């Protein structure tokens, strides 16, 4: 699987290259500035890209802008955005086109190699990987409102895990539930939120995220 990495800190860039190579990815490029990134994304069309939000030359949100621009010309181009801080605002912008293949994680998540590589694979396959912190913020700004308040604590946990982009199998592992129990919970959640049920994991996640965003 081809990966493009955009990160201006040499140590972190090098670390990411080694980490991904060790897990069987092919690193087709490692760039350190916004313009180079946009060029790489459009020319190399990598299976997945890992992009830092803040890049030279302006050290503002260069990486994010390049990612958004690339996805505008190539819809659904899988990109995983890394940042030192997460903002709902950025998450919304990334999810706005509703086409999946998008991830938005804190840089700390790289510490846990297994989970990080799992997230990269998920994004490459057209799924989503949202940082738990973003999801927590999204839920917090919805917390007081109906019908989210009507969810049971267990259903909330399932909703959180689902919004992060995990499949039923992954959720059942994380919450120590049987897969059928998870399926039951998700059906309940969809009924309570008034969403149309769907068997496709990715489509389901996008529906939930769109729902959460529309409320705030």
């Amino acid at each position, binding site marked *: 699987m081809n990966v493009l990495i955009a990160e201006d800190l040499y140590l972190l860039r090098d670390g990411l290259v080694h980490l991904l190579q060790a897990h069987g990815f092919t690193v087709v490029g490692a760039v350190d500035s916004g313009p180079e990134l946009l060029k790489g994304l459009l020319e190399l069309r990598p299976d997945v890209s890992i992009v830092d939000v803040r890049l030279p030359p302006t050290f503002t949100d260069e990486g994010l802008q390049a990612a958004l621009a690339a996805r505008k010309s190539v819809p659904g181009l899988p990109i995983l955005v890394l940042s030192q801080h997460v903002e709902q605002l*950025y998450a919304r912008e990334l999810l706005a086109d509703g086409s999946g293949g998008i991830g938005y994680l804190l840089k700390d998540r790289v510490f846990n190699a297994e989970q990080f590589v799992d997230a990269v694979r998920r994004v490459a396959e057209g799924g989503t990987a949202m940082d738990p912190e973003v999801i927590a913020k999204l839920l917090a700004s919805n917390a007081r409102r109906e019908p989210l308040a009507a969810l049971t604590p267990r259903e909330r946990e399932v909703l959180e895990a689902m919004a992060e982009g995990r499949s039923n199998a992954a959720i059942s592992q994380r919450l120590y539930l049987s897969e059928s129990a998870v399926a039951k919970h998700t059906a309940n959640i969809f009924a309570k939120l008034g969403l149309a049920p769907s068997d496709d994991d990715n489509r389901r996640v996008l529906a939930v995220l769109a729902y959460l965003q529309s409320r705030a």
Partner: protein
Amino acid sequence: MLRRYGRVATLLALLVVQVPLIAVSLVMLVLSVALGMVFLFPPQVRMVRRVAELNRRLIRSWTGLAIEAPYLPKPPPPVPQADGFYRHDRTLYKTPRIPAWNDRWKWLITDPATWRDDCWLLLDPLMKLTLAPVFLLLPAQGLRLYALWSDLLLGATANSRLANQVTHLRRTRNLATDSQAAEMRRIERDLHDGTQARLVAIGMTLGAVEQLVDQDPSAAKALLAKAREASSETLTELRRVIRGIHPPVLAERGLGDAVRALGMDSPLKVSVDVDLPNRPDAPVEAAAYFAVSELLSNAARHGEARTAAVDISSREADLRITVTDDGMGGADPTKGSGLAGIERRLAAFDGVLALNSPPGGPTTVTMHLPKVLPQHWASDLPKLPRHKMVIVGLLWATAWCPTFPQGFVAAIFKLIDFDEKTWFLALHLPEPWQWPTITAMIALGLTMHIMAIRIPAVHNRERWMIEATPTKPWCP
């Protein structure tokens, strides 16, 4: 009409107070200067100032002419030395009373406004009598004239305005440095108690891992996992600290998006409306951001609000921010330091905060920061008045004629004794007039060129001076 006559009558009736006051003032001044009874001086000044202030107030309400008080700012209270004594010149005092009195006396006697007031008091009855016919025939014009006369002696001078401005600037600078120092202390505490302590813990854990790794690899592995977790926590902590110093989204996106991000994170339903043509300077952005952040969290915490609206707009170089919530209202700036803190932050930019929070709500806070936005000078400078533009155009169109053909070229023809006179005016004149005419032509031409350059330049500079100075001491 009747009302105007009533006002004139009031002015004349005031003479009943003024004339005895003149007598009393004279006696007090003579006693305090000639006999050294200086304690009589401050009460005399106070009396006169009271009457002068009354006059200013009456004129403002009657004619709309606002006469600014010209008094120099009060001296600050005496500050004790390290040993607890108060020093005045070369004398030490146990209590602040005498130094304070000395400062006060000096302040009053050196303020030119004191003497201008006295002058006004002395001349005012004469002026009123002189104006009496005008008062009777044309009361409106009479009042107007009287207002102008009062402004002459009771109004502020460039010096007093500057002195007051210096005091104001010193106060706001002190506030700004104080709040900055407080911020620094808070950041230091956060880093010291949080991040630093956690890093020490991680270092110790790693040290333990180093010792264990050979004997007990599984225990070492467990410790390493712990260290990783701790480093994750440290990062979270650090992120919180950074957010308190300068939120990353503010640095990356500017005020508008940063406030939008705030709105999304707030438990309230916040609508954000931003209309800014260009980004304000970083310090202004930060002050505005933290003010909005504080107001939104206040609304969520105390006001039981459900929705809030933030409106950020600009008018020329002024920034205006309005935050409205539908909470309980009844916010009191004297309770809690939130609003006071915002005011302190805004004071550094001459910003003001207006709070409207009736019991039962809604609460509206309006912040106004004058002259803080960057402006594009070229487009914002007002155009030259039409008549000046015409003059400049004419100057450019004609200045070449005296300078070159009639001036320099004629001079060269004359120097090389060229016979052709063509249309060079100077060469047609009698010999003794030729050189003076040529010189005059050159001088005229150069003057015209200089004027053509100078008129727009002066206009721009005047405009710039007005823009650059908050209040304009030179044009009352």
